[in-house]
């Protein structure tokens, strides 16, 4: 039994089935992409129990009992894009889009788990995922603005 994007799902998998393949082939959540299958590219990154994780380096059986967030769960049920998705569009942070799901899941964990992020921190954090198209500038700008947004929100919640 796993919870995927808020929905409880039970399924069965051979022990050797990678979590990526379970998400894509069994659950038909094909937004999680497969690049290298050895942890290097980041295309398969999903958030498991709050932490960005490579789904290609986990067996589906190991996720039993976990809460998984994939790219499909970012937009609201009504189809309103997640703030970071809007910023990716605004900053032209994608071209072909292959890396984008992994970039978004990586960035959300990075920003939400850090108090304050410099541009340098964002570049280091986002080096966890590879993009063959954009040259990263747009990605760094989008993630920077998202980090600022969250900080402003926090400041106004406190104040």
């Amino acid at each position, binding site marked *: 039994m796993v919870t995927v994007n808020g929905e409880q799902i039970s399924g069965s998998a051979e*022990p050797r089935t990678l979590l990526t393949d379970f998400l894509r082939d069994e659950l038909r959540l094909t937004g999680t992409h497969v690049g290298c299958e050895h942890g290097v590219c*980041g295309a398969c990154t999903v958030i498991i129990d709050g*932490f960005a994780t490579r789904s290609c*380096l*986990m067996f589906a059986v190991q996720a039993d009992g976990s809460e998984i967030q994939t790219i499909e769960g970012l937009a609201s049920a009504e189809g309103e894009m997640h703030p970071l998705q809007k910023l990716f569009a605004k900053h032209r942070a994608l071209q072909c889009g292959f890396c984008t799901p992994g970039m978004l899941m990586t960035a959300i964990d990075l920003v939400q788990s850090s108090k304050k992020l410099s541009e340098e921190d964002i570049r280091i954090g986002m*080096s*966890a995922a590879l993009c063959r198209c954009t040259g990263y500038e747009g990605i760094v700008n989008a993630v920077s603005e998202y980090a600022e947004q969250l900080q402003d929100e926090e400041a106004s919640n406190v104040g």
Partner: protein
Amino acid sequence: MKPASFSYLLPKTVPEAVKMIAEHSGDARFIAGGQSLVPMMNFRLARPSVLIDLNRIPDLSYIKDRGDYIAVGAMTRERMIENSDIVRDMCPLVHDATLNIAHLPIRSRGTIGGSISNADPAAEYPATMLALDAFMVAKSERGEREIGAADFFDGVLSTSLEADEILTEVRIPKAPANSGSAFIEISRRQGDYALAGIAAQVTLDDDENIIGIQLAACGVGPGPVRLNQVEDGVRGTTLTAEILSNAKEAATAAVDPEGDVHATAAYRRKLTGVMTERALRKAVLRAVGKK
């Protein structure tokens, strides 16, 4: 590629895990974070017929202050170590080393026990444990033993763990008063394995003489390399420009790296000297800054 089939065992306690490995010794592997093992299985460079998953043993995940040392459970994630105040305050070199390991999503899952058992020559933790004279605790049905880092790492991807033993805990001596440390490395891209890296810790007396020095390198030998001769040249001195330049030269001469697709042997040797210089300088600055 996809892994070959295996049967999957899920122990809930250490004694259960120990029993399972004894029963299947030879064709069974433990899986910790899977961040080194699963890539090897995906490429079928590893095809264990039995996989014993340590992820549901809560007793293996902790960071404890035990007086002279801190004890870290083998299944403690790299990310938990990076965020631990105990580690940052009492073993700052381990904190520094952790920030150099891979990327955030890898550290979400990778464990200290996995990294040390895997003993990749370029990995940060083995060199750090060697520099700090840490102890590894291993268990099997035959009992428990404590292994010093100098006896633990013995060659490429090889340790003195027996086939039926599980690593349960790492015991890391606390940094002495008036000490400073630094882990410095060069890699092709932030998060990649180091081409060469140095773990350094120095202890100063009141006149800023170096009374203690611990130095080890990664990426430049079959395993982590303790730089004894370099330590001898620095111990008892203050870090003058001359001492620093001698240390750099001694470090360059002390290692015998192999070249590969990432860097030539000569470049790695040169980097060892440069990293030694930078790590020593930073460690001493940090020690002075604390006073």
